[in-house]
């Protein structure tokens, strides 16, 4: 398998490096599309008949296994990865077109090679059985995504964000190595399948936690999410889409895989509670900070964190259902989590593409500098609106279907009287998250696309090219399909959930009618709304229609700068949630006592408290140690020899005191 991989990588790199500047995207697209088509068709085959396929068999000399196979769970993720990668690469063509001239061709080639490698390695992650191969692809994915973030490496922030990302991923990687090494030591194999044996014989919690932390680092679990809001604004938009929409899902994949191996009921219960707790914390933290952000991509990044939280709530509910022996709850939770994973990859890709459109056409991502783009970029605006509505879980789009499943799991748990307090906590959190998501995304969409343009540049922006629209239409199709035909989507995730827990597959009997009803409701809603709109339009056609300025409530000289900004839109919430996202910024706001305020300049920013936790003390400590170490660099021969003497003395003393044996 690895020799083939070697050949493939070499061929891809050669093709991309050899292609003319504008054609590199097409070469990458061809490769990714071919791989995705193959993987996707295999995945569909697996999902259709439910039988796992063995994809490759590598001789495992390190950390147990090296095999790769695809069961229904892998197949679902492969499907998701394929879709997301193809859309991203397709989108990148138009997105990067304007910046190609500024970059070195080698850099562009590197970018596309990394993009291809990223797509392939994610497929590898989703199909590896565990052990060495898994870690290999995992780390390959990390380094590829790191290179992808570095597209605008001239900017210092980009480099800083990319480095933070890399370091955090490395910590996560070491945790995974710890997990697999322990597993290998105990069971002689580091496959995921071997975990079942490990969990059966020992206290499963420590290893479970190690894996949870390791995978959680990638998934953006609270409080390890800090890399997301840094990396996404720094990365080009198609990369953000790929990372946020697809890559963090590999973390979810890992968590689900590990959780699925738990069999012991008390352990399952604890794991479920842990997942639920993590999900609640992650989701609430994510949405509270998302609502505070004033940069489109930072906001979307926090929203990804929130959605990871939602997914984990689902997984937690499902696990609790398994622990309680309630198959329906288990099915709802797990299917909901899986479907939400799939859905999130669709709408988050779409939204990041939309953010990319905004960036290339207006050169800014700051909410409070934009506005009124809906008229200049109508198609992008419409697509973005669909994504925003979907991510708010509004019917009749796909987000609603998956959240409904998770809610159903929670409500069924409550109705059945099992694990009520946990389910209630999940329910409350999910409800609050849902409500705040509406706030966040109305803020985002309203400030960016609606109203009047706040700056001159924005007013002159134009619609993007067709290829990019096509790339955005790809996830949109998914959004609509899942939203309007939820039965088919449910069918898909039920099979995938079957690989996680056979019990869950049994508990899905009550779901198809629900999905049919949801489908009916969705169409009814569309029909009613469409009818109302048609009737209204028809009626209005015969009436007088005039155009007049927006009603200024008596104020006669309004200007575009007076529009409600994103910051002011979310101010009400921030006054409640100031402890989570304290406001910092330059300048001073108008004080209440100033009756006739002079000119004020105020730039608000909301910091993540966890950022400080990660940045502050230990970085400072390392810096201090480093500074102390630097005293050793004197260049004096005395000190060179001093090291040797010190070494001898240390070893001598350690031995004398029996500290080393």
């Amino acid at each position, binding site marked *: 398998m690895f020799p083939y991989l070697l050949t493939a990588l070499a061929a891809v790199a050669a093709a991309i490096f050899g292609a003319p500047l504008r054609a590199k995207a097409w070469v990458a697209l061809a490769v990714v599309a071919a791989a995705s088509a193959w993987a996707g068709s295999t995945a569909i085959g697996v999902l259709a008949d439910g039988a796992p396929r063995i994809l490759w068999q590598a001789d495992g000399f390190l950390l147990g296994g090296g095999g790769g196979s695809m069961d229904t769970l892998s197949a679902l993720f492969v499907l998701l990865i394929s879709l997301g990668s193809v859309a991203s690469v397709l989108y990148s063509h138009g997105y990067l077109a304007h910046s190609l001239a500024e970059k070195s061709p080698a850099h562009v080639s590197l970018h596309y090679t990394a993009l291809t490698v990223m797509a392939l390695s994610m497929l590898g992650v989703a199909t590896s059985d565990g052990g060495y191969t898994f870690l290999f692809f995992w780390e390959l994915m990390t380094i590829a995504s790191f290179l992808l973030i570095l597209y605008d490496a001239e900017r210092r922030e980009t480099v800083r964000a990319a480095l933070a990302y890399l370091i955090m991923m490395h910590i996560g990687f070491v945790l995974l190595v710890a997990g697999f090494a322990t597993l290998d030591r105990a069971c002689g194999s580091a496959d995921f399948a071997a975990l079942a044996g490990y969990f059966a014989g020992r206290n499963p919690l420590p290893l479970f936690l190690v894996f949870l932390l390791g995978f959680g680092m990638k998934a953006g679990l609270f409080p390890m999410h800090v890399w997301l809001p840094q990396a996404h604004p720094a990365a080009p938009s198609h990369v953000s889409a790929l990372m946020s929409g697809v890559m963090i899902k590999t973390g979810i994949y890992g968590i689900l895989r590990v959780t699925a191996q738990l069999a012991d009921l008390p352990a399952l219960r604890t794991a479920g509670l842990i997942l639920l707790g993590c999900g609640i914390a992650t989701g609430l933290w994510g949405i509270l900070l998302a609502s505070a952000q004033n940069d489109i991509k930072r906001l979307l990044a926090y929203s990804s964190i929130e959605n990871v939280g939602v997914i984990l709530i689902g997984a937690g509910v499902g696990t609790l259902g398994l622990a309680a022996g309630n198959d329906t709850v288990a099915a709802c939770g797990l299917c909901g989590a899986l479907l939400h994973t799939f859905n999130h990859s669709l709408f988050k890709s779409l939204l990041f593409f939309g953010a990319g459109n905004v960036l290339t056409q207006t050169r800014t991502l700051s909410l409070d500098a934009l506005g009124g783009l809906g008229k200049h970029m109508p198609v992008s605006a419409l697509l973005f609106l669909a994504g925003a509505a979907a991510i*708010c879980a509004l019917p009749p789009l796909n987000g609603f279907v998956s959240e409904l499943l998770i809610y159903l799991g929670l409500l069924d748990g409550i109705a059945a009287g099992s694990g009520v307090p946990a389910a209630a906590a999940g329910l409350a959190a999910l409800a609050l998250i849902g*409500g705040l998501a509406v706030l966040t995304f*109305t803020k985002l969409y309203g400030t960016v696309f609606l*109203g009047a343009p706040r700056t001159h540049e924005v007013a002159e922006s134009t619609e993007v090219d067709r290829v990019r629209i096509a790339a955005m239409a790809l996830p949109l199709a998914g959004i609509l399909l899942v939203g309007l035909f939820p039965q088919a989507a449910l069918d898909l995730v039920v099979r995938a959930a079957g690989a996680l827990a056979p019990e869950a597959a049994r508990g899905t009997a009550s779901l198809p009618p629900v999905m049919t009803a949801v489908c009916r409701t969705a169409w009814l809603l569309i029909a009613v709304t469409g009818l109302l709109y048609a009737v209204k339009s028809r009626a209005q056609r015969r009436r007088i229609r005039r155009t007049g300025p927006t009603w200024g409530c008596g104020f006669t000289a309004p200007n575009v700068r*007076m529009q409600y900004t994103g910051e002011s839109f979310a101010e009400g919430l921030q006054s409640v949630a100031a402890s989570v996202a304290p406001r910092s910024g330059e300048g001073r706001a108008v004080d209440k006592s100033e009756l006739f305020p002079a000119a004020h300049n105020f730039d608000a920013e909301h910091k993540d408290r966890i950022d400080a936790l990660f940045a502050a003390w230990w970085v400072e400590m390392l810096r201090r140690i480093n500074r102390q170490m630097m005293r050793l660099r004197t260049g004096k021969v005395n000190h060179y020899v001093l090291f040797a003497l010190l070494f001898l003395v240390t070893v001598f003393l350690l031995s004398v005191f029996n500290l080393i044996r």
Partner: protein
Amino acid sequence: MMTTSLLNTLLACGVALAIPGLINRVRARLAGRKGIRFAQHLYDVRLLLRKGAVYSPTVSALFRAAPAVYLGAAFTALLFIPVGDLAPLLSFDGDLICFAYLLALGRFALILAALDTGSSFEGMGASREALYGALAEPALLFAGATLALVCGCTSFADLTAGALFVSMSGMHTAVVLLLTAYVLLKLVFVESGRVPVDDPRTHLELTMIHEVMCLDYCGIDLAMIKIAGWFKTAALALLAADTALMAFDCRWWTAAPLAVLLTGAAVGVVESTRARNKLVRNTTFLLTLAALAALVFFTGYLLQSDIEIR
């Protein structure tokens, strides 16, 4: 089956149309006035429906589509609500969630429409609406969860289907259900923009919430928004009435009048006797409501565990 559902829908619509009239009447009586005629709001709407439209050059197509979405969502939401023991037109496990998110869809559309005008006043209203809507969501779902807990089912239709709570009768359950009804009634105030959260009669835009969001609407659009508001109110009112009656005997001929009377009287009385909250206190009000809903839920949970032990 179909006929009962249609009846149900008609009744619900009737409730929706009746409530504003009753509110007006109650308010007038409490103020010692005779009051406008009962169906005045319907005449007002008819007037609006006949009018033309003025649109700001700032707005986009979204602004024009929003009222239809708002009304469509509210209407679809109403279709889930059973009136007493009648079966609603739409029903499935977890339709409570669908109901909540349909309301959210309407809110989403209206907020965006408000932001589309580029007016800072409307933005202000939209901001408040978004925040209060978000904070009201946990309360609504806690109320739903309480119902699910007490009745052991997750759809509105099953809740009121009577046969389900043979084992559930008793004082404890009645208390929990009544408290839930109280929570739902309070939610009516929030969702329909009534005192103490919002004052529909105020003339100062700075203190408005719901009304300021539709400042730029007129004619058919405004009519649709108003009707949608009625539907929302009616849906929640019916839910409250059903819940209250569930403790006793839930029939359509009791539920529909109760919904009208309860809401009409409560809103009317409160609007006549209380002043609007200071805006900053609204947040507290909503959080308290959510806490109350949670409290009711956990009371129900404890009582239920108690029952099971016995």
